[in-house]
């Protein structure tokens, strides 16, 4: 995968995880499946755990182990108040950023160069 895509992915993967958690708490495997379904946003599935740890260290997610009699213990992650604020800020930034980029690349796309 080329470096541009890699950099783009790095820039958005954190907010994308926050967006999933904003809907409901999830555990790692659930997050991986949804990111894959959305468009394989992870370079590899296992990297979700270091990424979740970064979000945790930033105070944007919290975590808890959930134990049941019928399932293995799972570590659930959920978004914090700070995380929601961070996600909202990203959404604003992304809206402006994507509009600007789309405007710039529109002529190129119309010409069929890409």
């Amino acid at each position, binding site marked *: 995968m080329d470096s541009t895509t890699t950099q783009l992915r790095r820039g958005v993967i954190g907010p994308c995880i926050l967006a999933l958690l904003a809907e409901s708490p999830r555990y*790692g*495997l659930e997050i*991986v499946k949804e990111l894959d379904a959305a468009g394989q946003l992870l*370079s*590899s*599935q*296992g*990297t979700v*755990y*270091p*990424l979740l*740890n*970064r979000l945790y*260290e*930033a*105070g944007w997610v*919290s975590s*808890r*182990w*959930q*134990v049941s009699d019928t399932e*293995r*213990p*799972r*570590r659930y992650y959920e978004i*914090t*108040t*700070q995380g929601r*604020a961070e996600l909202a800020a990203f959404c604003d930034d992304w809206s402006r950023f994507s509009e600007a980029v789309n405007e710039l690349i529109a002529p190129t796309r119309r010409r069929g160069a890409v």
Partner: protein
Amino acid sequence: MTTTVRAEVAEYLRRFDAVSAAIPEPRRSELRAEIQEHLTDSIGDSAGTEEASLVILEFGSPDEIVETELDGASTKRGTPRWVLRAGAIAIVAALVIFGITQLPRLFESAALAGGAVVTAHPVGVERVTTGRAYAEYQQEITKLSALPEGSAWPEGVPAGLDAGATVDSTTGEVGVLEAGAGQVAARFTWLCAWENEAVIAHDHSADDRLVAAIAELKAFVAAATTESWGPGGSWTSAVLTPTDYDNFGPIRSDVAESCMQAGITIH
């Protein structure tokens, strides 16, 4: 719960162990446990060798995961709880050491008690009254202001927080905990007590108690030695400042986490 580790998962973990020495404990054990759970869940009990290999391939190599982990460790962005989390992770590691079966009582969603939750013998993890972490705890509580009326400093600190080598009873892994966890336990205990006091006072419209509790928390912020807990820190803006606008939702949520970090269960 006892589980049998599939050969493919065991092999992957062996490869992870070989390349992950640079990840400090207890984070390394924590990450290893998550990897094991993920692979075990993904592969399941009935998958064949080929299917298991495909799952592991999609999961990614241990080198890539370790690289991502260390890359994140070297380029930390604003970590509001970094200084305290170093010890908080140690506390979480202590909880894991006691066995996953103990965790539901510690992490379950809790309705706040109508009274003090910080007592000499609080509900929660096993505590010890010896060791370096206990000495750190004892020293730190002399620096903190008194707890709310009806509360008492727990006798002892959560077990397993002493700096130095430790053995994870779940995995048998030998790790190293850093010093300072006893101090962290003391501060989170204090926070648990006063956040709980503020919420109870608010819920009961006990204005005198509420004003006193908020004043204590603001004094805690003013005296903070780390940016994350200081007046401009994220905890202040996300949890404490909203109380000035009668928004007690964030602090209500934070009580459970603060108490958990102190090894105290609230119901």
